[in-house]
């Protein structure tokens, strides 16, 4: 049976080179900083954060604040002038980037050496909430920023045996002001925490391997998680705040380092250990493309507001892809 000949997979629009070290974190910033041209931040294993101009396609600045230890997570605060970087030097740095400055203005000490990325929730200026892996191996710590006041520590019940938290996502439902946290655990389960009550609302064991990353679409109340195994899991949150598995999607090769839903919630992309980026239709979970360019494991994927996709790999390159343009 002859299948219709599929279109050849596209090429990257451009490839950024020069990190000289595996890329572990990517983040787009649509600030007004570069006169309407978005910036891309990349965090490398050598501890550097590169700021790339997407107009020039060149690195503008390099931030060195993690003593040569791997940078695992990058996030800008809404105004775009402040950057958070999490490093394996047990430090979370807050950078001031306004008006050409690039200095660390504050830092939060971390107590977990894992690869678990932090998460923020901006409720109202200037206060925001930060979730970081906690001191105990199974704990998540919630801080109020910028005062760095500890709000609480989310610790599963003793008999739960969830293992370490692997990924975190703070969010807030439109109808309720209560902050919620989705966390993926080492045992392959995803749990929904009510932060104020410090209790697990719901938990599903949707993977057999540790959950590597998850992303959540709060409008559709639907999320997706990837693990070290061969499956992607899609799950839903019902009216009673209970998680339910909607389905799983089997992959040919194991290992998803990051899964990201595009801001317009039309498609999502996964970073595969098999050197490939996979793109899916978010509603139908239909596979759209397998992007082969990198020569080593992909560690992170990120979308810009205009739909541009970036992928960072162990091969020290960052590929940029323009796919299925946003309407």
């Amino acid at each position, binding site marked *: 049976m002859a299948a219709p000949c599929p279109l050849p997979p596209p*090429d*990257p629009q*451009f*490839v950024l*080179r*020069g990190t*000289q070290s595996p890329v572990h974190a990517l983040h787009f910033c649509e600030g007004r900083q570069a006169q309407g041209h978005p910036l891309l931040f990349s965090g490398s294993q050598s501890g550097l954060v590169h700021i790339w101009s997407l*107009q*020039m*396609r*060149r690195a503008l600045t390099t931030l060195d604040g993690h003593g040569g230890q791997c940078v695992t997570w990058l996030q800008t605060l809404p105004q775009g002038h402040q950057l958070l970087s999490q490093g394996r030097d047990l430090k979370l740095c807050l950078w001031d980037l306004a008006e050409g400055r690039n200095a660390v203005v504050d830092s939060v000490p971390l107590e977990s050496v894992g690869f678990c990325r932090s998460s923020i929730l901006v409720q109202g200026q200037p206060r925001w909430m930060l979730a970081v892996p906690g001191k105990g191996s199974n704990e998540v710590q919630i801080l109020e920023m910028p005062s760095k006041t500890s709000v609480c520590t989310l610790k599963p019940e003793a008999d739960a045996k969830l293992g370490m938290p692997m990924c975190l996502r703070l969010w807030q439902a439109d109808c309720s002001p209560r902050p919620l946290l989705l966390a993926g655990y080492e045992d392959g389960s995803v749990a929904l925490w009510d932060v104020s009550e410090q209790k697990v609302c719901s938990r599903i064991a949707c993977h057999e391997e540790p959950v590597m990353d998850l992303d959540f679409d709060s409008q559709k109340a639907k999320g997706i998680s990837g693990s070290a195994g061969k499956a992607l899991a899609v799950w839903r949150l019902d009216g009673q705040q209970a998680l339910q598995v909607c389905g799983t999607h089997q992959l040919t090769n194991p290992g998803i380092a990051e899964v990201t839903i595009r801001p317009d919630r039309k498609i999502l992309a996964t970073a595969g250990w098999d050197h490939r980026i996979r793109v899916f239709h978010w509603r139908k979970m239909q596979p759209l493309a397998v992007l082969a*360019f990198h*020569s080593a494991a992909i560690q992170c994927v990120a979308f810009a507001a205009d739909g541009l996709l970036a992928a960072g790999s162990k091969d*020290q*390159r960052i590929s940029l892809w323009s796919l299925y343009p946003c309407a």
Partner: protein
Amino acid sequence: MMAVFDTPEEAFGVLRPVCVQLTKTQTVENVEHLQTRLQAVSDSALQELQQYILFPLRFTLKTPGPKRERLIQSVVECLTFVLSSTCVKEQELLQELFSELSACLYSPSSQKPAAVSEELKLAVIQGLSTLMHSAYGDIILTFYEPSILPRLGFAVSLLLGLAEQEKSKQIKIAALKCLQVLLLQCECQDHPRSLDELEQKQLGDLFASFLPGISTTLTRVITGDFKQGHSIVVSSLKIFYKTVSFIMADEQLKRISKVQAKSAVEHRVAELMVHREADWVKNTGNKLTILIKKIIECVSVHPHWKVRLELVELVEDLLLKCSQSLVESAGPLLKALVGLVNDESPEVQAQCNKVLRHFADQKVVVGNKALADILSESLHSLATSLPRLMTSQDDQGKFSTLSLLLGYLKLLGPKINFVLNSVAHLQRLSKALIQVLELDVADIKIVEERCWNSDDLNASPKTSATQPWNHIQRRYFRFFTDERIFMLLRQVCQLLGYYGNLYLLVDHFMELYRQSVVYRKQAAMILNELVTGAAGLEVEDLHEKHIKTNPEELREIVTSILEEYTSQENWYLVTCIETEEMGEELMMEHPGLQAITSGEHTSQVTSFLAFSKPSPIVCSMNSNIWQICIQLEGIGQFAYALGKDFCLLLMSTLYPVLEKAGDQTLLISQVATSTMMDICHACGYDSLQHLINQNSDYLVNGISLNLRHLALHPHTPKVLEVMLRNSDANLLPLVADVVQDVLATLDQFYDKRAASFVSVLHALLAALAQWFPDTGNLRHLHEQSLGEEGSHLNQRPATLENSTTAEDIEQFLLNYLKEKDVADGNVSDFDNEEEEQPVPPKVEENDTHPDVEPPLPLQIQMAMDVMERCIHLLSDKNLQIRLKVLRTLGSKCGDFLRSRFCKDVLPKLAGSLVTQAPISARAGPVYSHTLAFKLQLAVLQGLGPLCERLDLGEGDLNKVADACLIYLSAKQPVKLQEAARSVFLHLMKVDPDSTWFLLIELYCPTQFTPPHPSLHPVQLRGASRQQNPYMANVLRLLKELQ
């Protein structure tokens, strides 16, 4: 002449007798007598006696009855003399003299001037002219009162008649001059006061009566035979426009009341007067338009430039002063002006431009709706007829039509958009441009001219401001040959780009570009000029307030054009039959081809290679070449237009341009190189190297992505090669990155495109060796040994001298033994004798990391990766690749390879040479077109340098020599003989003695006599054969040895 009589009294005394005499007897002699006396009288005295002296003269003129012409002439001349030295202070006298002089030419029988001698006519004209100049102060104005109308009219028509009908050029000119004086247009210095409004109006009213006569007659003169001389036409034109612009001046006309004021003149005169009310103006304007059109039609092609220059003045004067009253004429007038913008005479051009600028400053066109409408309409109609004109006209016709178009665009400025916004008109205009810009692509040379070394990127941009079209490639058009037409077309497009709606225009021409290959080249040329024009760098702007396209927008537009230009289907066109790649592919498909020598195949090859006349293939390849060149030139022009802003486009542009700089077609490579210069200049790089070096990241991106589709981008390795040659050690990480891609791709395409990769790898190793120079030890030794060899060679001739003594022989033997010692490896003794080996400086470095083995430096790691691939390629099926690889490796790491070469490669190479030799020895001339021949040649050419570099041992050298000896035969093709000789030249460097011996064995030119009687004579094999096929080559080689 000195005035002898200063006082009136003295003068009176002298003049009185002659005056009395003249009054009594009116003869020529008496007049001349008077004139002679007059010449001795001073001006002041003359003024006092003016009336007295004039009396006998006027009396003579007035005396009734027939007179001799000669007498009248002398009287008029004498009168003129008096008037030229005196003033007429009474109006009455002025009027009377005017009438009396005019009457001299009056013939009561006919309307025409009297049939009198030319001398008399001239005298009267001079007299009238002098009279008007002698009028004192304001009496000249009082002269022009309505009552003079009949007499003045008579004089005017008299003069017009003379100007038109006389044969003598002198009289014609004098009559015209006099007419100017009468109409107060005289340009001499004697009329100081300018007229006030009322005076102007009164004169205008008066002169209006003459307008029909003056305008029609002068039109006839102006449009008369070119041969009548330019000065007559120039004067006539001047009088025409000055008169018209005075009588029809909008300034005057707007003050004319509806009802004619009752004037106190007699009825007869009042009938002659004209009232310049609206109807009259309209009618007159219409009639004048007919005349003006006639004049323009005739004068704009007048052969004398001064006439055309005067036409420019006419247009300026009439349009500035009478744009309302002569609104019907505005179109033709503007057309005339615009048509002269590119006149062949620089004076006319300059004046035209001055007038256009003046118009723009005064907002004559833009500020005047009527004129702007007229111009738009003219442009509309020109656009309509343009396609037809461009096909039907000759070069000269095209030139004037396009000049006209250019002028309209210049004058209309931003208002051209009214025309462009009409789809129909834009289409007509573009159709015409596309049509006329069609190239002639039949030139076969373009395809044939190749450039083999594309490495020369050392040129630096010219220091002078480079304008892209200063070095634009000469091209040939189907529909015209005049280079000036091309320049005009470019200017037209630039102006369109400057004033027109750029989005609209670019859209339109991009559409045509995509539509058909027939339009593509022309559309690209037009797009290039549109952008250049839009940047406003070369456009002479007549409309100062015009806002240029903003740089951001322009960059976006350029980006979209560039995308189209460099897209797969427009950039990668077939421009030649790629011999190298073709050869490779052929060989892959038919491995047996290497040895094929059958006639059938060779004839195919030859017919394939030799084009006898431009075939459709050649034409389409030429067309492709031109398309690429035009697009390249466009990129240069875009860079020029955008300046520094172009830097942002380098990421997408530099790669494709650099790729073309290495194109095998000479024209493309030249144009691409000059495009790179333009880019350097625009972006502020001082050399091509600098440009490439600073933008290697963009290049690497292109290379890496294109390597993924190698079949589509077969030249990608070439770009990397060029980049490597222009990079430095700072770029090592970047290079390392892309080399990973190269090696990965090579791994994928071992069978297909290995050859192009091997040269990249070669370039890479060369670059690495250059960026990270050796610490020196090895190279030092190597150079030393080379030096040894050199001196050894130099010694040879001395030892072969005839005057050899026993001591020489002894010395030779000693030397020989010593060298043999060295050759056997006993170097240590030798070194001790010379000097102490310097301590290798590396030891220190090793001390810093005593125990840990340091990770290999990146460059070494890369080199190792490369060599690993090369080892695989050593067993490639393709001989050329094997050789290339060997040369690559051989130049960098001799020892490592020698054994491999000797074991695997050499036997095969030598074997193929030996088996192929008899075939090539028998083959005819077509053999040189076969693959087999090319392979033989390649092997022979490659072996020499390899043997030398790999430093082969004696046994292997013998193998090489044995295989190559057969090719020294005169039976072999000349090229193979040459290549074989080159092998031996290399062998001589490695081992001169055994090579010498080998050659002597083949053919020995001389009998060797021992240097000393005590030694036995030598018997050599070669000496016995007197004539053999190797003789010539051996002799040549032996010559090299001595």
